[in-house]
């Protein structure tokens, strides 16, 4: 355990904080200090305990032992109300906003005041704060009609309206484009100049280097160290995060260019409410390559996956699958076919959806019942033959290092990484020629993430086509052979990531057609 020198200018100090959930020790005697007027990055992998630690600072959890000091005074934070009273405001990763209310209503929610709401006065005050720090915010706009970046702005203004001097942001850039991230960082610097103290929870090393003054590192619930950002490097930070030297590059094996497996032409999808989700999408996916898909959340990635796999109706366009069965090569236009029909026709495609326990798996069922989800029709008759699949499941658990008490444990009890391995493992078992993955490494620790990248590369090397929808641009640029950028339901461009900068891709994510379009031969 490190000794934190008593600094008279500490905004927050957390000493020997321990928190357990049942058998899991989320934080073990963790220490943290935040100086006044600094930006501190709280760095750690997924599952290292950083969000739990900050949840205790913001009153959502109560520590088992240890103490918290705010401006050198010991305090007890038992609820979010206490945290606000101390001037601590947290902007969560999953926004705590009520959709049907307006921005201003969300901001004043739960505050004491006159019984009747004076909406005009509130709107005025909110506009004042927004102007002070350089936000763009319409107080009367309903949250459900806002973009992700706008919602985040509401969250920050909410904290400031309540007089927060200490702000905690949990993975704020996960959902932003590079340009929005730059704007956010500018705002953070303005707030810092006004004397606010800021903790930013992140696992993105480049952002840590860019915005923070100091970095505190957690690993598997333990506190490792706090260092000055100017005196460290990404490699050092990774080593402290993971505990050993980790290769930071993602492999991109060169594979012989395969056949065209998927030919999508002019795909358009209009939702029930009349919103155009996809507009004239045309692209190809080839065997032996990973096609990355980048875009701000809500650009049509979900609809793209669902239309191609038969889970959503198409307004117009064609989707031609080209695959081999034995000696034959079959071309099948599956546009408009429902998922069960596609399965019946024997088209070998696999889909790992974004919503793992809500769509890809049945949370309350065990591994075997989840593995047979795609294959229970295989045997004739009306009975299910579970015994037949046990050896296959056992093999999968072994090969992918899935940590589970047993084959009959419900999958909701597994950790995030293991859930994903079950999902991906099952899909690969069906030997698909086209594999579509939506955000496969979201929420996973580094080691599991790299495991997934290897699995995807292995599929690529088998000659299959992989479509990878991701949110981390750095990963997408390292892993993909070609990168397709979606913006507002349209293709903004298909580029070679080796010849493109991150900024160019960021621009394509926000405005259609800012990049060089072109398909590889």
């Amino acid at each position: 355990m490190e000794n934190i020198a008593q600094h008279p200018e500490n905004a927050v100090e957390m000493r020997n904080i321990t928190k357990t959930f049942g058998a899991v020790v989320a934080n073990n005697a963790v220490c943290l200090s935040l100086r006044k007027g600094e930006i501190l990055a709280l760095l750690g992998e997924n599952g290292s305990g950083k969000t739990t630690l900050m949840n205790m600072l913001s009153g959502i959890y109560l520590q088992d032992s240890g103490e918290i000091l705010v401006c050198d005074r010991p305090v007890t934070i038992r609820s979010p109300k206490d945290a606000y009273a101390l001037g601590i405001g947290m902007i969560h990763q999953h926004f705590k906003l009520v959709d049907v209310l307006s921005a201003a209503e969300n901001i004043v929610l739960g505050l004491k005041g006159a019984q009747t709401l004076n909406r005009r006065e509130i709107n005025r005050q909110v506009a004042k704060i927004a102007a002070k720090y350089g936000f763009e915010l319409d107080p009367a706009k309903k949250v459900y009609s806002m973009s992700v970046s706008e919602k985040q702005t509401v969250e920050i203004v909410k904290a400031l309206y309540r007089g927060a001097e200490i702000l905690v942001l949990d993975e704020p850039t996960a959902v932003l484009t590079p340009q929005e991230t730059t704007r956010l960082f500018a705002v953070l610097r303005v707030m810092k100049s006004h004397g606010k103290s800021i903790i930013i929870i992140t696992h993105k090393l480049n952002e840590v280097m860019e915005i923070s003054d100091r970095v505190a590192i957690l690993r598997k619930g333990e506190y490792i160290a706090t260092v000055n950002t100017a005196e460290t490097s990404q490699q050092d930070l990774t080593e402290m995060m993971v505990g050993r030297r980790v290769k930071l590059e993602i492999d991109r094996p060169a594979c012989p260019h395969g056949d065209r497996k998927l030919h999508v032409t002019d795909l358009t999808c209009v939702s029930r409410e009349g919103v155009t989700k996809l507009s004239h999408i045309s692209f190809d996916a080839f065997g032996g390559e990973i096609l990355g898909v980048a875009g701000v959340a809500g650009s049509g990635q979900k609809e793209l996956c669902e239309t191609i796999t038969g889970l959503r109706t198409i307004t117009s366009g064609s989707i031609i699958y080209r695959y081999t069965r034995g000696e034959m090569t079959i071309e099948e236009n599956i546009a408009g076919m429902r998922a069960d029909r596609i399965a019946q026709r024997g088209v070998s495609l696999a889909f790992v959806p974004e919503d793992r326990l809500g769509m890809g798996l049945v949370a309350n069922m065990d591994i075997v019942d989840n593995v047979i989800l795609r294959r229970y029709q295989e045997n004739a008759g009306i009975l299910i033959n579970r015994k037949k699949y046990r050896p296959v499941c056992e093999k999968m658990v072994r090969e992918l290092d899935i940590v589970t008490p047993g084959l009959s444990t419900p999958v909701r009890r597994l950790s995030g990484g293991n859930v994903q391995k079950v999902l991906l493992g099952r899909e690969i078992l069906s030997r698909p020629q086209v594999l579509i993955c939506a955000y496969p490494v979201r929420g996973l620790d580094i080691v599991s993430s790299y495991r997934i990248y290897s699995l995807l590369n292995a599929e690529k090397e088998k000659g299959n086509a992989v479509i990878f929808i991701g949110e981390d641009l750095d990963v997408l640029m390292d892993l993909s052979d070609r990168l397709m950028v979606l913006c507002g339901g349209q293709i903004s461009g298909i580029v070679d990531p080796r010849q493109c900068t991150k900024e160019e891709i960021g621009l394509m994510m926000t405005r259609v057609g800012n990049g060089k379009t072109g398909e590889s031969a």
Partner: protein
Amino acid sequence: MTHSGEPFVRVVKRTDIEKGKAILYRVIALLCALTVGGLLVALLGYSPFQMYSDMVSGAIGKSLIAVNKQGVLEFSSSAQATMKIVTLLLVTSLGLTMAFKMKFWNIGGEGQILVGAICCSYIAVHYGDTWPRWLLLVSMFVVACIGGGLYALLPAIFKAKWGTNETLFTLMLNYIAINFITFLQYQPSWQMTGTSFPKIRDFADATRLPEVLGVHMGWIVALALAVLLYLYFSKTKHGYEVTVVGESANTAKYAGMDVPRIILRTMFASGAICGFAGFLQVSGASGTLTTDTGGGAGFTAITVAWLSGMNPLLMIIYACFIAVLQRGSNRIQTTMGIPKSAADMLIGIILFFMLGVEFFINYRLIFRTKQVKREAALQ
């Protein structure tokens, strides 16, 4: 240093609980409920012990099965009435389970029973005096199932297409069915002659089911149905599909299942089984049709299904238990003057306790004790 602001009691989700412990908790809850019920009647001046023993003897009689005056083995006369209720409750709760497993809240069991009863009564009224017995029974059975099935299919179609709330839809259909029977009571071809108030006539003997052990054979069919449904859910493809759709319709769709078809197929089966219960009531239990033919089973069966955790085999036990309470409450009305709606209150209290005990089975309570504080201080 310990935290002085430690809350008095913390709630932590359990990872596991042994089956035996869970059963023990439930039994304790049941006993508590019966005690509270007993206290209630005691406060009103009645003896709880007499109430419960009268209930049991009213339901079972001197002995469950005995040789009667004609030398035939059959259920005692009290038990016969109880067995009819058991059959009705068991079949209805099995029907409702079909829907509940799919998280489709079919509150329309009563209406589906009645529609099944109406359909087979139609045959009984118009052909009961002319057709041979076997033809009557088979045709009545078939139309009852189809009628009940279609009545349940209607809300299912709207749910599958537009997500219409099935709880209220099925509920409203109940009242429509009840009113339709009242309407039939005024129809000349259906009416009983020679009574002062409108009533549907008794049907011919040829429409009645044969008896086993003094009770219409429906009770044997009910037991067989329970076993059948148990196997259906645990071992068949259909059962697997129903469970997946109930757990997560999204996942079912993703897995390539035809979710609308599964919903419709299962709801038809649910209504058909309830319609079958209606057939058993008309052809087996009463031989006529009234607005009371369902006897509230559509609602009581919900509690039976819930108490059994949707397990068809356990439903046999709970159906018997509730039937004893209901039949027994008839008896205590005559012997002790306790209104028979006491049974409803008692069932409500039991279910309240059973709902409450699930919390203690799923969660653990950690109290702030001196021990915990001491341990924390040592760290």
